[in-house]
């Protein structure tokens, strides 16, 4: 129980094989209740398999997972009763109206008639879809369908909702709109959200914690801030006067300097972890280069993510895609 908070998800060395392919490789995770957790990874990293295991749709080959305190192997039905899900596809019945889509799942979750009608109205209104409630969903845009699918996932007020790449395939405006809706929803409904995405901007804006997965292995987990700090690999931007190409080449040979590149007056230097920038500045001054400004470049989540992906590739552990 991290920081004494109750856990929504606890996975202990969960492994899932599909024949010779290992889709999840000893995945261990602890996700507290009430947060938005982002599960980041490239296509085929094992994100969807993780959701399927956590929802009790498939059993792990090894290891153990609990969702809301329930065993995924034994209590799949109880887990699905308490959770909502927007999976890889919106999963909407396109011949049915938006209202009937929600009505069906409301009935499936045994929401009483009156409460169901009110909840459907509330959700469709929140997502700006009420006026189009009687339209067959097949006529809707991708963005509207995704919103409806999110509304369906939270219709029965689940304690935990799985959203598998909810903004995938949406245009930037629709993405931003849905992202705002998700943030508001998570805050207002107090629901724990398990969100898979490869949109790092989205993860950074929405998630309190993120995990990075590749080839079924969890590479890192923490808050976006913690991951960014990991990605701070000593990049420094120096505004100079009088820098020459020859000096840049010599600068690259200095101890603790990993790379150096100049673009006009700007000098981008990457130093070894923990190394000080002061000797570099002193060296530049010594060689008659004017130093106007020294700025440590803060890594973005994308930098941290790419850094992790790069490190994993360098380790030669990329086992390829997973189902």
């Amino acid at each position, binding site marked *: 129980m991290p920081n004494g908070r109750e856990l929504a998800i606890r996975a202990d060395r969960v492994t899932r094989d599909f024949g010779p392919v290992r889709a999840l490789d000893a995945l261990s995770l602890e996700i507290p209740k009430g947060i938005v957790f982002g599960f980041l990874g490239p296509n085929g990293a094992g994100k969807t398999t993780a959701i399927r295991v956590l929802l009790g*749709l498939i059993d792990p080959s090894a290891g153990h997972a609990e969702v809301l305190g329930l065993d995924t192997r034994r209590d799949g039905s109880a887990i699905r009763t308490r*959770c909502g*899900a927007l999976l890889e596809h919106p*999963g909407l019945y396109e011949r049915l109206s938006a209202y009937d889509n929600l009505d069906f799942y409301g*009935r499936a*979750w045994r929401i009483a008639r009156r409460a169901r009608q009110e909840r459907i109205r509330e959700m469709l209104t929140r997502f700006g879809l009420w006026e189009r409630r009687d339209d067959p969903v097949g006529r809707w845009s991708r963005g509207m369908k995704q919103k409806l699918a999110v509304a369906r996932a939270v219709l029965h007020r689940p304690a935990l909702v799985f959203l598998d790449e909810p903004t995938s395939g949406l245009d930037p405006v629709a993405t931003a709109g849905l992202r705002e809706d998700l943030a508001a929803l998570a805050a207002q409904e107090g629901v724990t959200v398990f969100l898979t995405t490869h949109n790092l901007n989205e993860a950074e804006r929405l998630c309190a914690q993120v995990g990075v997965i590749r080839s079924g292995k969890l590479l890192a987990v923490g808050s976006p801030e913690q991951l960014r700090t990991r990605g701070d690999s000593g990049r420094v931007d120096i505004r100079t006067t009088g820098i020459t190409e020859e000096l840049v080449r010599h600068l690259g040979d200095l101890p603790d300097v990993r790379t150096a590149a100049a673009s006009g007056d700007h000098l981008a230097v990457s130093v070894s972890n923990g190394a000080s920038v002061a000797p570099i500045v002193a060296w530049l001054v010594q060689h008659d280069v004017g130093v106007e400004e020294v700025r440590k470049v803060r890594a973005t989540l994308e930098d941290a993510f790419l850094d992790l992906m790069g490190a994993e590739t360098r380790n030669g552990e990329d086992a390829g895609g997973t189902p």
Partner: protein
Amino acid sequence: MIHDIWTVVWKEWQEFRDQLLSLRRGGLSAMILALILGVVAPVQLGAEWVESRLIIGYWPFLAATMVSSLIADSVAGERERHTLETLLASRLSDSAILIGKIIAAVLYGVGFAVVNLAIGLIAVNVAHGENGLILFAPQRLIVTVALTILASLLMAGIGVFISLRASTVKQAQQAFGIAIIVLTMGPLLLFNALSYETRTAFIGRLGRVGETRIEAYVLAGLFVLSAIVIGGALARFKRGKLVLD
């Protein structure tokens, strides 16, 4: 469980209703069938329409045909339209989903046959009922309805098996078409392959058994066969497998 089954039946009917109301998606063919079987045939045949023994196979065949087209769309269609995994991620059990789908298709097929039968009775009486009401003998009506229900159940079970192996509705419907031909033509071809003496002896033996007993045997056989096929379909319809298919 019952509530969950009816929830699935409700959803399936919402989709069927859309298909039926849309001329392009099946409404037109349903109307043509209703016109031929419910109006043209009874008007042409008159009293024979309710007295002929052949008519007993007419309604089960009609219902089974309707069921076959619906069940393929209902099971293979969920996968093709990417709605199956979301349905499986809900709290509904595997058996509630499958039984709901089978009941919805059977109700539709049987309902369609019964409505056609009722229209036919009206049509035959309007055209030929000047000397009194033309009605089915009660036993024949009961046997016809029971056969219609059992044939629909059997077809729904077979449809689930076929649809679980098909990745698209079209594939499932094509496989279903072949299965229907084999099931209907196969026994006839087998019978014709027998020698003349064997056939004559067989027909003679049937004649001695009596009509009522034959009907009872057929009903019992269909019941057992339907139970086996639906039981097998329930055993195969498991979310752990369906999610990965």
